[in-house]
């Protein structure tokens, strides 16, 4: 489902934005440092803190994300469904290493710490119409 042309928007150069919703219906919007490409039908988000996003997706698995390409600002809208978390293994190790690189580039070393790679199924993907 994910087209190859979305890959530049998944490099963590500019943050992505996600919205979740609690079971009692309150939306929650937050920036995240990166959305990782897993395969054509799955992406991963970093679970770093036991925050509202973490709690919401375990109550209600649906997420919408906006990804943006740092070179063109082309944005993409993804609808996602939480699938599972990985606390060890190659995906976790790769995300941990890249997160540390992002942290050091953005002055957030010591703040970012990967607890798990949260894997989501991609329900839909489309280009944003926000660019002229």
């Amino acid at each position, binding site marked *: 489902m994910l087209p190859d042309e979305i890959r530049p928007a998944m490099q963590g150069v500019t943050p992505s934005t996600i919205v979740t919703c609690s079971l009692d219906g*309150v939306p929650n*919007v937050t920036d995240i440092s990166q959305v990782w490409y897993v395969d054509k039908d799955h992406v991963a988000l970093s679970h770093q803190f036991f925050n509202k996003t973490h709690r919401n997706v375990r109550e209600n698995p649906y997420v919408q994300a906006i990804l943006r390409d740092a070179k063109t600002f082309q944005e993409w809208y993804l609808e996602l469904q939480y699938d599972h978390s990985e606390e060890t293994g190659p995906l976790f190790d790769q995300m941990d290493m890249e997160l540390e690189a992002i942290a050091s580039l953005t002055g957030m070393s010591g703040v970012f710490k990967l607890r798990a790679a949260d894997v989501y199924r991609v329900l839909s993907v489309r280009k944003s119409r926000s660019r002229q």
Partner: protein
Amino acid sequence: MIPERLVAFVHGPVVSFVGTRDARLRPSVSWVFGARVSAATDEITVFVPDIEAEPIKRNAEQNGLIALTVVESISHESYQFKGKLVGLRPSSDEERAVQDIHRSKVISHLTKFPKALFEGFRLYPSTALTFSVEHVFVQTPGPGAGKLLDLSAF
């Protein structure tokens, strides 16, 4: 009452996103460009470009629940405002000017990005979405993210 420092923050060179959800609890998010804060009434009006506004408008009218996250992209300082819809209407010419002023502030602030990238966004026509702020949360990355802000002590 929304403190002066937060008012200045929202009116500054920030990027902002509004989140809503539908009747099935499926969330939607859109970039907003420009805002006006009324500290006296604890209301914020944000300008949502119409090109991506439909789900936001539909959801807001359906259940009224609004989340607005405002981010300063260099320091990463950010806050989330949650509240209830007061109204939706087409933005006025004056508010279009507010959007243009806001874009100029962002261009001047985020100098590592070429100006043309920001100029390429379709900001209008847009919808003025006004909501009453009930809670403000710290959203700056770190262990304190998600903490309810005590506005009287801020």
